[in-house]
């Protein structure tokens, strides 16, 4: 509730509200009264004197304080000094233990962070293991060669039966991985045969397909490898199926990770998206 300062005489008003005036805490009415009084020389003088006196008084008051011993006497009111000292020692020890534990945690965190950074650096900057052959270059060449091979001489087993392809591969010696075959790649694509390209250090399974509608061939390869071993390329996504695409003069190449260590690769004249749609069937 605001008090009615009009009941104060002018000198009481000045002396009793001086700090409120300078802190801008007077009401509009009281502020106007104060300013009006300050226009009078006598009140201006008493205002200055009061300000000075309060300052001197406050300064003098700051010189009085309790000694440590006296403060200890106040603590003794609620707790024996010996017990308090013991409790403080225990508290300091407890804080010390927490500090030590915190220090250990901080050191451990730093070590973990350094190890994590080192692992990340090794992972990202160590050159990927090189394949024993240049995948894109070699398989593009193989695809072109098989496309030009009218009689099917480059096929180990010319056949239109996927069952025969499967049997052929199951008895083939020297494959260090299990190829993933497609019974149907959709459209009017039909299998024309299978071959295993032997680079001595790597064996590549290759299936040849043909479309009467497009009158063109399409080649599906499996080899042991990893997507990260290929040059970086634009990532594609067909309904959640992730792949990388490359293009040669007139053919598109779609690559994807078939399984942990096996790569799938399709080369053909169809668009990258069409080839990726065919490739995505291997993952269903």
């Amino acid at each position, binding site marked *: 509730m605001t*008090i*009615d*300062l009009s*009941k*104060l005489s002018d*000198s*009481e*008003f*000045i*002396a*009793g*509200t*001086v700090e409120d005036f300078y802190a801008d805490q007077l009401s509009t009415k009281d502020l106007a009264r104060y300013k009006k009084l300050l226009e009078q020389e006598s009140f201006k003088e008493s205002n200055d*004197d*009061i300000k*000075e*006196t*309060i300052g*001197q*008084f*406050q*300064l*003098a*008051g700051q010189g*009085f*304080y*309790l000694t440590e011993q*006296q*403060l200890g*006497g*106040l*603590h*003794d*009111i*609620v*707790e*024996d000094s010996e017990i308090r000292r013991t409790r403080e020692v225990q508290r300091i020890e407890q804080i010390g233990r927490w500090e030590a534990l915190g220090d250990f945690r901080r050191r451990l965190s730093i070590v973990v962070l350094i190890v994590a950074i080192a692992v990340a650096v090794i992972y990202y900057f160590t050159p990927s293991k090189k394949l024993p052959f240049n995948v894109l270059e070699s398989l593009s060449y193989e695809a072109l060669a098989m496309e030009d091979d009218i009689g099917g001489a480059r096929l180990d087993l010319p056949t239109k039966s996927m069952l025969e392809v499967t049997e052929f591969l199951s008895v083939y010696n020297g494959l260090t991985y299990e190829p993933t075959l497609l019974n149907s790649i959709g459209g009017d694509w039909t299998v024309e045969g299978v071959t295993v390209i032997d680079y001595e250090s790597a064996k590549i399974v290759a299936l040849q397909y043909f479309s009467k509608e497009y009158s063109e061939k399409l080649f599906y390869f499996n080899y042991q490898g990893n997507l990260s071993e290929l040059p970086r390329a634009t990532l594609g996504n067909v309904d959640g199926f992730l792949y990388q695409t490359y293009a040669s003069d007139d053919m598109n190449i779609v690559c994807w990770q078939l399984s942990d260590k096996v790569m799938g690769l399709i080369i053909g004249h169809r668009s990258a998206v069409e080839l990726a749609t065919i490739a995505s069937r291997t993952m269903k």
Partner: protein
Amino acid sequence: MTESNLRKLNENELFFYEDRVCGEADAVYRFCFGVGGDPAKAYELVKMTYKNAAEEIAGLLNLSTEEIRTELIKISYRLLSKDKIAKKSGSSLFAKYLSKLSFEQKSIVLAKDIVGLTVKQVSHVIDNDELFVRKELAAARIQLPDSFGH
């Protein structure tokens, strides 16, 4: 030695007493010394104030620092009001500076200008209205000497 008739404070109350209540001890001492004028007597009053505060600790636990300070000064004022010797000005130089002031005026000007309470808080301490506080504060300030020896 712990005051024998004081109940044992729990750990939370002990920490509060030592940290928050004892943190105001110098302000309480200045008030008691200013009103009473004798250092030894002032310390005795501070101790009595703190014994009372420890007994009433539950009522202080949720207060702000300003509110704790106000309650401590209120206890001191209550004790001083009952102490006829303390109400008389002591022999210290500071007491002489304040010797012209009445007990109420000393209490008000010390609570306001030395302890730093607001007029509203001072009115709570002395249990009187704010206009009275303003009047007595003004009278006390007018009677204060120009210099305090420094």
